[in-house]
């Protein structure tokens, strides 16, 4: 097992290298110029050119890529062209809100999606099943920002239960932290709940047809232990897989959700950086997200061995 983990971690290095090259190249060929944004609308072309030179944007691709890669290898993600702050500091400022949102969404999604998926499978063909599947279709179909606006209108503006926007750090109080994240987590969680609920239902349906489930029923075992101890554990591998794959959905969704609810997280930092062409920040965030994604997949692979003893690496 330790050998497997070591191999996977080592394998992460070339993956990150390819991501780095890809991101750098993509930004190099993408249109847009940070110097133009910095200089402002009234600047002359000469001003813009001087700023380009001062930012080093006039240097050849290989020279810039080489310097950037060297810094990355030393743990330095560079400095934002706009704020003058180190990218690590900018990411550090934004990490807590995004992590909080994602963790809360993940918990909410699993707590809601798995039981309703199990319920739908147990009551397959009934109105409960149809209701759960109807919700899943809704969750997939309605964009995150629409759900966000509706939630904000109903629960923040009309009922005044929660704030419309913003983020309060956990250190300033659990409730203050929680109340800012409830609506965004629900909005972001909709699609995730739909995805997990559907997979849970499908996987459970397959398992519930197995002989050992019939045997369990025959020997008089109750519904709850059958569903949650015997069936769910055996149906869990695809569910865990989809939770892992769904992290990409969550990262993408966080970008939109953070904009709608004005949460100062990594998603908004990404959008701001892209609109301004703040290359070091874009590169730093994409590398971070790629690393997180690779890490989540590693964790998923490890969880398989806990769920199914037959799986060994």
């Amino acid at each position: 097992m330790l050998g497997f983990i070591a191999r996977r971690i080592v394998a992460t290095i070339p993956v990150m290298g390819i991501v780095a090259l890809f991101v750098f190249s993509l930004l190099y060929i993408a249109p847009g110029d940070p110097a133009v944004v910095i200089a402002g609308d009234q600047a002359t072309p000469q001003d813009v050119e001087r700023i380009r030179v001062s930012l080093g944007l006039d240097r050849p691709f290989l020279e810039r890529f080489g310097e950037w890669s060297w810094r990355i290898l030393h743990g330095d993600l560079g400095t934002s062209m706009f704020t003058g702050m180190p990218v690590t500091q900018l990411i550090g400022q934004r990490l807590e809100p995004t992590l909080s949102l994602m963790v809360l969404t993940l918990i909410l999604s699993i707590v809601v999606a798995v039981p309703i998926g199990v319920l739908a499978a147990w009551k397959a063909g009934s109105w409960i099943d149809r209701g759960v599947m109807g919700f899943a279709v809704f969750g997939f179909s309605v964009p995150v920002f629409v759900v966000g606006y509706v939630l904000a209108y109903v629960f923040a503006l009309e009922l005044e239960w929660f704030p419309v926007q913003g983020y309060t750090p956990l250190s300033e109080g659990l409730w203050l932290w929680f109340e800012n994240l409830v609506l965004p987590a629900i909005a972001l969680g909709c699609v995730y709940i739909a995805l997990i609920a559907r997979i849970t239902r499908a996987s459970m349906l397959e398992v519930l047809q197995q002989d050992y489930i019939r045997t369990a029923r025959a020997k008089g075992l109750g519904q709850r232990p059958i569903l949650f101890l015997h069936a769910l554990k055996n149906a869990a591998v695809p569910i865990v897989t989809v939770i892992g794959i769904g992290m990409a959905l969550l990262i993408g969704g966080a970008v939109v959700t953070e904009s709608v609810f004005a949460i100062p997280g990594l998603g908004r930092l990404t959008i701001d950086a892209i609109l301004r062409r703040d290359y070091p920040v874009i590169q730093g965030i994409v590398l971070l997200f790629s690393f997180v994604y690779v890490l989540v997949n590693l964790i998923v692979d490890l969880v398989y061995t806990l769920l199914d003893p037959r799986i060994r690496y």
Partner: protein
Amino acid sequence: MDRRNFLKSSLSVGALAASGGLAAPAIAQGAAKTLKFVPQANLANFDPIWGTQYVVRNASVLVWDTLYGVDSKLEPQRQMVEGEEVSSDGLTWTFKLRSGLKFHDGEPVLAKDVVASLKRWCPRDPMGQMIKAIEKELVAVDDKTVKWVLSKPFPKMKFALGKNNTPIAFIMPERIAKTDPFKQITEYVGSGPMKFAQKEWVPGAKAVFEKFADYQPRSETADWLAGGKVILLDRIEWVIMPDPATASAALQGGEVDWWETPIPDLIPILKRNRNIKVDIADPLGNVGSFRLNHMHPPFNNVKARRAVQMALNQEDYMRAVVGSDDSLWQLLPSFFTPGTPYYTDVGGDILKGPRNLEAAKKLLAESGYSGQPVTCLVAQDQAPLKAMGEVTADLLKKLGMTVDFVATDWGTVGQRRASKSPPGQGGWGMFHTWHAGADCATPAAYNALRGNGDSAWFGWPNSPNTEKEITSWFEAKNAEEEKAAMGRINKAAMDDVIYIPTGFYKGFQAWRSNVSGVVGGPIPFFWNVKKA
């Protein structure tokens, strides 16, 4: 107590136990005189000389002070300066600083700081460059006196040092002002009425300003950048909200106090809310611009430019930009801002009256237009530009032109418009932008009106007549001469179609009714603003 606070109080008992009662300071902080403001854009950098975006300027007027400041009549008034002397030949300016001026680090403001600040400002500002070109000497005579010796009179000196157009001639401590003007400063120490809380700055999310207790406001009544900048708040928090619907909801919910740029679609909702006041944000508004590329066909031919000018209906553009509220826009047969002292529409007849599409088509044919595509760069992420771009595509098609509609983002337009290549090889034919009305009141800081060919603003118009008249405006000795020169500039620029104004329009600002002292202007002025 509203429902949310009630719910908060009820449900936070357990949470308080878990968190050690940390909710209390946040509630107490809300009771302090903190004003939460939603600015027009993200404060991504904070160097008003290096980055000349309006949002940077707007934040900078809180932190840095100026020698002079324009009032609402755009007249420069003394601000940091106690008095000035101009030699009889107009070549030597001597400025005396007010007593008691201090920087936020406690150091006094000295003449050497002024000299270093002006040296950094000059290369980045069009008027500064003009002064620099005729400068013989800029020195600190003593701690309070600065002398600027020129080789030629520069009558607009006070305006240059007090104007509100970016970059403003802000005064910084010498050690900061010695930074290369093309490199960003990293320390934000000024002598303005508020201090910048650098540690609390989260670019893209929040910027905080705290009252500077040692600030010495002037005794005159505040009027835009002039007069006494009296701060009646302890703290101003800029909350960045990229989504207008969220900002609207936050304002309605009382989570923020003042929103600088609500979009027209949301104004009716805000106006219906009795806790919110809505008014024109800036009486000087904006001038919409149809910018043409004078270097390449078809718009390198003045007849093709005039054909578009003749056919263009400003009403179509303005309705597309601001909607059905007629109080927000007006036709503009001029390059200058209506309502300002020197406004003129001399030579602007071609933009007045019913449009004549047939005559325009004839003129276009005379230009030799042979169907080559007109590359229209249209930024989709800027609502006014998207709206104008769609009207233009329709207009050009009606004129019989082939339209290459490039729907892109503002960042890409910003880069591509700098290309002098032909439209088919990465260049362009036209793009839309807008100019703040405050920048268009006179030719002083109006780069977009220049007609100096290769050195001109994007599109590179070559109009010797316009250039000659701009020079005559700078040399004007009195208001009458200035006004006459502006008439001649307007005519020359219209004749050569430097660009085509698409109309004059204004926007709203909105604030909670417990906030008072909000005034309209090109900058959100926080002095004398109170929160009950």
